[in-house]
């Protein structure tokens, strides 16, 4: 019981802090890669607290609903992850958040929001099947969808599921809003769609979405951590390497179109997944 409570607290409170810190580090590393110094590590928290304190302003009151729904779904997904629940269930709950984000953006009539929302949907379309297949692959290897059982598996999954890890990398890039897949909105100042799906969220609601994004970051890194669950050092090294690779990709690629994204991610992703799944099924 106490374990459960600790897990809930970690998932609920510590995870977003870690997520915020990661995004601060992300910005510093990005700046260094560009020959700049970059903001302080805590910048993400400054931003969110500032946004919280701003005037509450909406286009449509349902945006408030959607922002809260997004952050709650993201938080619940992370809490369930720390409770070592069912992977597929966690993915679905995470998807609830993603859908509410889109619905909130669609509730504004601004073309920037609308187009951004549709691009976000296309991104979901691109990454969700890949994550489902990754989870299926993990199940085929370990015989369980439960994280508790997967963490108990006696060897790192990455040796058996390397291609699935790469496929997860695609999903990660999309989900972290990194180039070349930062179509719907990006972390950089502005883009051709202004701020895409986030255009008409402002002030406190934007802050909530940012917090929701921190939860998402933690959740996705959690997914990655399943691939090296036998030791803390290995796991951290894998996560650090993966995240650094994401930043590097972000900095060396340009934003592409959704057509390219869908075609490329599905073609590459499904090929990788299929090869690895067949390998596991036959092996």
């Amino acid at each position, binding site marked *: 019981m106490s374990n459960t409570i600790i897990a809930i607290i970690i998932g609920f409170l510590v995870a977003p802090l870690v997520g915020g810190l990661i995004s601060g580090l992300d910005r510093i590393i990005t700046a260094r890669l*560009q020959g*700049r*110094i970059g*903001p302080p590590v805590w910048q993400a928290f*400054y*931003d969110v607290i500032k946004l919280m304190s*701003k005037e509450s302003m909406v286009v449509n009151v349902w945006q408030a609903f959607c922002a809260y729904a997004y952050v709650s779904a993201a938080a619940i997904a992370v809490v369930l992850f720390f409770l070592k629940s069912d992977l597929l269930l966690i993915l679905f709950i995470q998807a609830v958040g993603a859908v509410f984000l889109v619905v909130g953006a669609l509730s504004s009539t601004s073309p920037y929001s609308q187009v951004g929302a549709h691009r976000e949907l296309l991104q979901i379309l691109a990454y969700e099947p890949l994550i489902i297949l990754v989870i299926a692959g993990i199940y085929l290897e370990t015989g369980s969808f439960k994280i508790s059982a997967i963490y108990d598996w006696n060897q790192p999954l990455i040796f058996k599921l390397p291609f699935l890890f790469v496929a997860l990398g695609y999903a990660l890039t999309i989900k972290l809003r990194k180039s070349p897949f930062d179509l719907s909105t990006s972390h950089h100042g502005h*883009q051709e769609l202004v*701020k895409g799906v986030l255009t*008409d969220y402002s002030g406190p609601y934007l802050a909530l979405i940012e917090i929701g994004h921190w939860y998402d970051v933690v959740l996705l890194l959690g997914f990655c951590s399943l691939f090296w669950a036998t030791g803390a050092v290995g796991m951290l090294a894998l996560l650090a390497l993966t995240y650094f690779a994401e930043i590097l990709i972000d900095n060396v690629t340009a934003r592409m179109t959704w057509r390219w994204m869908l075609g490329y991610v599905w073609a590459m992703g499904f090929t990788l997944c299929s090869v690895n799944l067949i390998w596991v099924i036959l092996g």
Partner: protein
Amino acid sequence: MKKMLGKIIASTRMKSPWILHFDCGSCNGCDIEVLACLTPVYDIERFGMVNVGNPMHADILLVTGTVNHRNKKVLTNLYDQMPAPKVVIAIGACGLSGGIFRDAYNVVGGVDRVIPVDVYVPGCPAKPEAIIDGAVLALKKFEVLRQQKLAV
């Protein structure tokens, strides 16, 4: 408790000013200087400043160039769409008074003819250092606004 919260908010506001840059009719000289602030040489992100494209996310409205009859409505629209607290910086001789264009038939004049301006950054064009300096001054304005709100 409330005081502490106020302090935290005040300090985060100083550390995370997001800027909306609006080219109101500039000759592009000032714009280039504004963008220069983003480059590695000046790197305003050090101060947490981000150049956002959307008034709804912005704290500081940075206006370059003169206001004319065509775009004054745009300027007020953008200003209205910013959530409070917000400050406005007018950049360059044009932004201040209309500059060399002030006698043109279509020109209204400086930015402060249309919306309240908090900081004036002179120059033709204004230097990046001056712009950054102006932005830092604008940050002080946030504290002033907060005190005013507390006093009410």
